[in-house]
């Protein structure tokens, strides 16, 4: 009897599941990405060129790494607005370590990562222990990090002219050395490496499991004996670590730490995650989706630039895309 009643339910449930879940939006985002590629390729012969594709990959790297980190936070049901300026602070501190204090580059890099992680840790403590809403806590951190970046840089960019290896690390091409002519900068490899690690962490580890659990039903997780506060702190710290990595990458790429750069990056990163199917209400999302989302944004920006659409209008278009993505998320939630 039970089997009989259960059977007709199953396929319908599976269909419902696909339509409801973020994976549907990931598929949509991927479709969108392909359409952008085809559209821009037809519109301009300059688009589908090796040089330009590398340009898109490069443009995706920093925003993509930021988006990876913030994916954890959003899936857990939170938000982190400080990632952009924490990235800047990490970049500046890497500069302070390497250029001003003459610390060896690898140690300087670790220092930069540590600064980002520390900022995330503080976010986590303020949110989990002091119960300050994430929006406000990280908005505060946005300004704190911005201020600290300006203070520690002395308001001036810090250049890495004494340490050419630093820039080489990001812009050199290990792949190009292996396969002649395939000069994809290391920066891009770092993005994919970070994405693979993030993906494993989100889907296979205890951290990932609790990230979803918190985003799905925090109270249920608490009643099941999950130490909710500690895991929240861990999740924001991970996000901080990725912001730190983004800071190191942007400094290496520009061969300088720009203290005034960074604000606004958080919105592009959050947009990337949402476009890729990470639900702003928590509990849903994949790293693959976020990476696709990041590519959608950079491809769009790149393509519009090639079509000579003014910078200002590019911003208008990306803003519209973000609203569209969030709207799809809202519709998905309403259907339940």
């Amino acid at each position, binding site marked *: 009897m039970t089997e009989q009643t259960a059977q007709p*339910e199953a396929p319908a449930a599976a269909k419902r599941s696909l339509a409801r879940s973020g994976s549907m939006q990931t598929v949509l985002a991927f479709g969108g990405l392909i359409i952008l590629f085809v559209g821009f390729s037809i519109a301009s012969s300059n688009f589908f060129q090796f040089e330009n594709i590398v340009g898109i990959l490069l443009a995706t790297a920093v925003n993509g790494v930021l988006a990876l980190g913030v994916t954890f936070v959003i899936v857990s049901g939170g938000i982190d607005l400080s990632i952009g300026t924490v990235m800047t602070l990490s970049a500046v501190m890497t500069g302070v370590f390497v250029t001003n204090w003459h610390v060896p580059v690898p140690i300087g890099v670790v220092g930069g990562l540590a600064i980002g992680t520390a900022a995330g840790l503080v976010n986590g403590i303020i949110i989990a222990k002091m119960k300050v809403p994430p929006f406000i806590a990280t908005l505060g951190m946005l300004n704190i990090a911005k201020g600290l970046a300006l203070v520690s840089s002395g308001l001036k960019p810090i250049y890495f002219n004494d340490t050419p290896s630093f820039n080489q690390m990001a812009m050199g091409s290990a792949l190009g050395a292996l396969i002649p002519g395939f000069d994809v900068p290391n920066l891009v490899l770092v993005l994919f490496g970070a994405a693979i690690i993030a993906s494993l962490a989100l889907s296979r580890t205890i951290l990932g499991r609790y990230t979803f659990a918190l985003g799905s039903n925090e109270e*249920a997780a608490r009643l099941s*004996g999950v130490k909710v506060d500690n895991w929240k702190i861990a999740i924001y710290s991970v996000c901080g670590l990725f912001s730190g990595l983004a800071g190191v990458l942007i400094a290496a790429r520009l061969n300088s730490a720009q203290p005034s750069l960074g604000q606004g990056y958080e919105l592009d990163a959050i947009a990337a995650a949402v476009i890729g199917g990470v639900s702003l209400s928590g509990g849903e999302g994949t790293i693959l989706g976020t990476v696709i989302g990041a590519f959608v944004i950079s491809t769009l920006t790149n393509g519009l630039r090639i079509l000579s659409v003014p910078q200002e209008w590019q911003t208008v278009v990306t803003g519209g895309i973000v609203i569209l993505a969030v709207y799809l998320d809202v519709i998905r939630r309403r259907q339940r």
Partner: protein
Amino acid sequence: MSDVLVSMEGIDKSFPGVHALNQCKFELKKGEVHALVGENGAGKSTLMKVLAGVYSKDAGRILYKGAEVEIPNPRAAQHLGISLIHQELNLMNHLSVAQNIFIGREPRRRPRLFLDERRINEQAKGLLEMLHLDIDPRTKVADLTVAKQQMVEIAKALSFNSEVLIMDEPTAALTEKEIEDLFRIIRQLRDKGVGVVHISHRLEELKQISDRITVMRDGQYVGTTATKEASIDEIIRMMVGRTIFGARPELPEKPSSEVVLEARHLHRGRVIRDVSFNLKRGEILGFAGLVGAGRTEVARAIFGADPLDSGEIYVRGERVHIKTPADAVRHGIAYLSEDRKRYGLTLGMDVESNLVLAAFHKFLGYLGWVNRSKTGERADHYVKALNIRTPGLQQKARNLSGGNQQKVVVGKWLTADTNILIFDEPTRGIDVGAKSEIYRLLNDLAKQGRSIIMISSELPEVLRMSHRIVVMCEGRITGELASGADQEGIMKLATQRGETRAA
């Protein structure tokens, strides 16, 4: 007496303003299904939440397998082997069945950071098979029916090797077929020696499943009987047997025969099913029923807060189409939510602002400037008329007592010229003294020719206050009683389940 699993004695628990449990006792034996019954607010859930460590008791003691224990939090209860399945299920919808069952104690792989997903699924499968449940452990919980979600909760409870399983209204949202499945599992557990506490309103059901029945009323223990020896009528008498209101109510004069509101064949999914009724001028129409019977849903639908699937609403004989609360207000209908603090008041604003908020347009002067002298005058009028006790018009609504907050909400709707007032649990959270004042207010409003629908789960209140009483159960109206009905009559209608539903 070695088969006694749990024994609670002299349990006391107070919340601010409410003495929720007063010298309560309860006993659970190994391998029995013990039903805990009582009206809404009798303290059943509170007592069990004390046992499950959700609330801490103020006084009394709990013996577990003969030894006195302290249960300060849910983890301690779990550790002892006591599991509570909440009325609102506590599952993570985005996670799979297996992930939910093992949340917080996932099997790991080396390095310890990684989950052993295969083992999680295998162990969950074993548990589900033990319960003869045909559920794939990898299914997302969101894709299961409520009944199956409940089974998942039971499986989760069993994975803690629970010896005491408390179920708070487990059948409230289930179909007949699903209830059968649930009972099969309950019996299976009972036969294995698990003690099951089954909190329910449905008396017919308890006859089927329980071995003993304990009745609670007003936070007090009334009695325990073997199910075999108790008749349903007897249990109902134990549940309601009290006379809080001594005197017969003095209702306002008979309402006029003029129908001001009529609902015809309202439908909305499974929560509102073919609901028709009418309301006359100057009448207080009581809506009785158990929690979840669909009374609030009907009110919200009429008020335009939720959409209807079908049905017609007439105000003073004219067909109206109410799509939003603003439409309802325009037709003179107001809804006073049971959750005043969330939906009725802007707590951070003062009394005056709250009173004029719903009719602000009346007080606007030149260029939309608010005419403060007019708002003050009107607010002052209602503070006096409704006897709102506040130090001044500038007092924040947050600082008023529950009864006075309720009066402010009433005043707000009077300012907006509404004359059909739907009160949802008007005295919930209001202390006894202030209740009678709310009753007087309702009577006065009716005398003035306003019409009132009063949704209430407190039977004495409904009986005392209403000209007529409509009783709902599971989304449909199961009967209409004239004033002068008794509690037993209402309870019978309120527990009258409909014909077997399609699954």
